[in-house]
């Protein structure tokens, strides 16, 4: 007979899941199933409560949740919250639905989560911290630490919200998240532009002597546009990165070699 579970998750359960997620997620990351075993580990105690120990239902549920899974670790609790909401209502017969939901949600959530939590925020906070650090000031690091504690809080409150709202959460959030991502990327692009103009201390030390006239090339460039050299160099590297078979690591080494050559020729120098 199809067993229906009537267990409702309590605050204690939420705390246990959140603790496991915050301190142990991704420790089992591997090439075969990526965060698969992590997904199971995080909610194993609750699965045992839902289905009961040593039942065929629990074994089936464990197998379902030990499959390939990978998403951004800042938003994964949304998926597990919705999953638990469905499973605690429908029981073992919902496992197929839940599998589909997991694979359906992990991609889009990874895209949003990665662009905001893995790319944009670390870039902006990292730029502020690094900007202060290269001047010997550690204050920016504290800002970063505080900001990341706020993100931890956001990760903590996702679960009860997703559990309460269930599948309706996805449709509700879609539009707002798109608008937010768009605005956040705009700010990101703008900030990168500002950083290019401040944090690349490169100039052209080349001085030409034409008869009695001395021409300092950097002065001429500054008259056209200050920070033109850093701007052009970033553009050049951006183009380089777009070439086939180019990786960021390769690009970094190419830049080092070219910089050493240009420095030896007296074309580029530290500002």
């Amino acid at each position, binding site marked *: 007979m199809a067993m229906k579970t009537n267990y409702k998750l309590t605050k204690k359960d939420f705390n246990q899941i959140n603790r496991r997620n915050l301190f*142990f997620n991704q420790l089992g990351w591997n090439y075969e199933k990526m965060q698969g075993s992590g997904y199971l580990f995080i909610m194993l105690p609750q699965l045992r409560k839902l289905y009961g120990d040593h039942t065929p239902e629990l074994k089936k549920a464990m197998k379902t949740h030990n499959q390939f899974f990978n998403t951004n670790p800042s938003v994964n609790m949304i998926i597990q919250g919705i999953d638990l909401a469905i499973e605690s209502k429908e029981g073992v017969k919902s496992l197929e639905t839940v599998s589909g939901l997991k694979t359906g949600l992990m991609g889009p959530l990874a895209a949003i989560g990665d662009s905001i939590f893995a*790319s944009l925020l670390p870039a902006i906070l990292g*730029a502020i911290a*690094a900007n202060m650090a290269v001047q*010997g000031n550690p204050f920016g690091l504290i800002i970063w630490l505080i900001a990341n504690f706020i993100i931890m809080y956001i990760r903590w409150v996702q679960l009860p919200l997703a559990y309460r709202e269930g599948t309706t959460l996805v449709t509700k959030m879609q539009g707002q998240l798109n608008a937010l991502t768009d605005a956040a990327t705009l700010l990101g692009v*703008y900030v990168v532009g500002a950083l290019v103009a401040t944090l690349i201390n490169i100039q052209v030390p080349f001085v030409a002597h034409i008869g009695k006239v001395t021409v300092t090339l950097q002065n001429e460039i500054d008259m056209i546009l200050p920070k033109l050299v850093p701007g052009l160099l970033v553009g050049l590297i*951006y183009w380089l990165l777009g070439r086939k078979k180019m990786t960021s690591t390769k690009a*970094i080494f190419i*830049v080092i070699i070219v910089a*050493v050559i240009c420095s030896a020729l007296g074309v580029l120098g530290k500002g």
Partner: protein
Amino acid sequence: MHGSIMFWQVLLLTLYSMYQIWDDLTIVSSLSQPVWAGLIAGAIMGDVTKGLIIGGSLQLTVLGVGTFGGSSKIDANSGTILATAFSISAGMNASTAVAAIGVPVASLMIQTDILGRFTNTFFQHRIDRLIDEENYSAIERNYLYGVFPWILSRGIPVFLALQFGGNFVSTAVKVLDTHLQWLSNGLATAGALLPAVGFAILLRYLPVKKHIAYLILGFTLTALFSTLYTNVQSLGTTMATVSKGFAGSFNSVSMVAIALIGLAFAINEYKKNTDKQKLTELVSSYKNSSKEELNNSEDGEIYGDED
């Protein structure tokens, strides 16, 4: 003291390198970032400022590098630890250490990261088997064992390099400072240029074409203001030394102010998007209702014909 790192320093740096990868995978407190590595390694080695400079430079280099879909990323944290430790112990210039030690180490460490991720497959297979055996506590235990490949993938190479790399680095520094001055200068230039790579990588992940206007705006605004502020600053400090009555504080351009201007544009964009969305929802609901009306009136005509 040049050229040698005390054993307790090696030990603390190794422990930190093992902690940071756990942090990076789980709570993400930012302690695993290169700037923090610079501060912590600098504190252990007794020169916080130098650590911050090296950490900050490497942070800017990898600004846009994230782990997407579980790919290995360049390990700028371990690179910072080794660059800071050797730069302080062997008396190497900070910018040179970034390019000569930080970056090569960071990219070599990709290999140990891959090894760690690969080793964890072993525990995954044990979990697969333990599910059939319904051994719940063993499942959890074997999941947690996954922490060892991770922390050892950082701890072992960092320990070995710190313990045995010192002599090699101090010899290299001597050669660089005497016979290869041009290379030393070149590496320092490279260190200063590396943030450009970080920014370019970041732009690759952002919708540059869509927001190109804001890229130009952010760049030009900051280029003008920073030049202005720098000039006023040097003018002001020079004047203050010449004339006693001339006082005042002269700061460099406020990046927070520059960022706030960008935030204003971002807020506008957000509002515009949500308004647009409401409009499309309204239009679609209106279309639906008018369709129904249309159906109703058609029905009416048919009834009329039958009359």
